[in-house]
């Protein structure tokens, strides 16, 4: 059998691609993402925060929990770059260590939400019928609760701790991801290539892991990023209210707790300005990255 003339252009293109670096879906996405300047800057910022969190002990030079009663409520100086808090702890050191907790909680909660959402959404879409109804009504229920109020109640019942908070946040974030995965599954379910895969002997689990999740990955990654931003924000809120990360462990949220008095707000801005800016910038950066990802994976939406 001879080669078909109709194939020649494809062949040529393929060779051109091979010389210019192959154009895989990932490469195309990366190229689009790089065009999104704000998102690229945000990635840079976030890498900085992550580095700060990872190397916090070496960078800060102070134990974040070391009480120094001789230097309380000191303004920023060469010794204490961001001053000290009412018990003389170094604010800069606490800020860096807080990044660990805040980012960790954000990522863990979002991860939990994505795993839950993918699993439940995929099952709902693939199995349909009553499974679909039950899962989606459950999602509606979770989405219709005011998240903060319920997490406050949950934290109140189970007692405030980091795992409780992660579970509580994850529980309220999964429906977003679940709906996306269900939607992708439903639209793919009718595709002939899924039928072809079934005709080749694939079962539901195989279809899920090899065909549906990879196809859903782009929208999931966007949802996951936005979930991280939300989770970081929620963590701060809960910790600020005293229901999240418990002192003395620092988190951006519980550092802001110090700013509950007017004298602090007016007289000691270094106590709340830095963690406040850190939360705001981080949430903003993660959201920008989410936007960039959205443009990269789904150019139709921009």
């Amino acid at each position, binding site marked *: *059998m001879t080669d078909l003339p*109709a*194939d020649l252009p494809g062949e040529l293109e*393929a060779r051109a691609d091979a010389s210019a670096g192959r154009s895989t879906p990932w490469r195309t996405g990366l190229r689009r993402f790089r065009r999104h300047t704000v998102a690229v800057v945000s990635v840079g910022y976030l890498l900085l925060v992550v580095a700060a969190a990872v190397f916090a002990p070496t960078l800060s030079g102070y134990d974040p929990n070391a009480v120094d009663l001789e230097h309380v409520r000191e303004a920023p100086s060469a010794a204490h770059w961001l001053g000290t808090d009412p018990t003389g702890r170094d604010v800069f050191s606490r800020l860096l260590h807080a990044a660990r907790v805040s980012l960790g909680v954000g990522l863990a909660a979002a991860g939990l939400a994505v795993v839950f959402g993918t699993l439940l959404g995929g099952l709902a879409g693939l199995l349909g019928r009553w499974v679909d109804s039950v899962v989606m009504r459950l999602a509606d229920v979770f989405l219709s609760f005011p998240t903060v109020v319920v997490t406050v109640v949950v934290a109140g019942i189970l007692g405030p701790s980091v795992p409780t908070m992660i579970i509580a946040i994850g529980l309220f974030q999964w429906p977003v991801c679940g709906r996306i995965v269900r939607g992708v599954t439903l639209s793919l379910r009718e595709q002939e290539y899924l*039928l*072809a895969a079934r*005709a*080749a002997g694939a079962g539901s689990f195989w279809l899920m892991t090899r065909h549906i999740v*990879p196809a859903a990955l782009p929208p999931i990654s966007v949802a996951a990023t936005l979930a991280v931003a939300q989770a970081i924000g929620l963590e701060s809120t809960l910790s600020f209210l005293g229901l999240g990360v418990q002192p003395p462990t620092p988190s951006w949220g519980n550092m802001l707790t110090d700013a509950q008095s007017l004298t602090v707000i007016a007289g000691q801005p270094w106590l709340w300005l830095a963690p406040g800016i850190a939360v705001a910038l981080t949430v903003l950066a993660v959201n920008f990255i989410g936007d960039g990802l959205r443009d990269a994976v789904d150019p139709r939406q921009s």
Partner: protein
Amino acid sequence: MTVHEPEPLLRIEGLHVEFPTEDGVVHAVDGVSMEVNPGEIVAVVGESGSGKSVTAMSVLRLLREPPARVRADALTFRGQDLRAMPPRRLRAVRGGPVGMIFQDPMTALNPVMTIGDQIAEAVLLHQERRDRRAAQARAVELLELVGVPDPGQRARQYPHEFSGGMRQRAMIAMAIANDPDLIIADEPTTALDVTIQAQVLDLIQKAQAETGAATVLITHDLGVVAELADRVVVMYAGRVMETAGVEDLFVRPRHPYTVGLLASLPRMDTDTDALDPIPGNPPNMSNPPPGCPFHPRCPLARERCRAERPALLDLGGGRRSACHFPEEVGP
């Protein structure tokens, strides 16, 4: 069937498939029986909506049930009942001893998976120990077998980098990946360019010869039938109208519908300007006519045809016809 007759590779008896719709229940397949013997090529012909593809899909139980309702008096492959088969065993049959080729290679390949990965998938699914490297190597080998040039390079490409003919070759590679005993090809050339059709048919014939697999070739193209098939099953309105050896069918059809089909073909040896189509339209399957489904369009129709549904009668010599008056039928 006597005891001495060998068990056919595939046996379908009294297959019914129904789809409930808003306009009532559609009887897509209405009592189809056919068998396929080892190594033979059986063509299933009929116009759109005659139930050919649905029949093929229900063999591998690929229809979503519900909404589809499938029942059969017998549905066996190598003597094993496909209806009672647990899902695990059924998955082993799909893509293993039974390979399937789909109509449209544009939609039957995952656009975001490389061709090599997709063929390797078909291999992996039927391996005890899942060895990715071996599966990839086998994929390249299969691509070469189906005549894709530069298979090593091509295996790393995506479906959009393949032409229609090349994609159908990849589909065929998937279908024969595990050395099947039966290949079901659902209109494998319909979506292709005429010039490519011949090549793909050649390839199917070659694959059939090489694997010795029996082939069910679903088509509406009588030219394809004449070229490839050993035996033909003619379907209309979800029923089998006639089955015969390919030569018998073309030379002396025993059902008026077959006569109509043959007459509507353009011919090289007669000098006519117009084709001779079958008058009327295929019936609405949610409300088929009583009696013989073909009677509203049949030149031989009479009272009995309107009242009584003809059975698929054995006429001897491997021929069967679902006509009350098969001896009156002539080309």
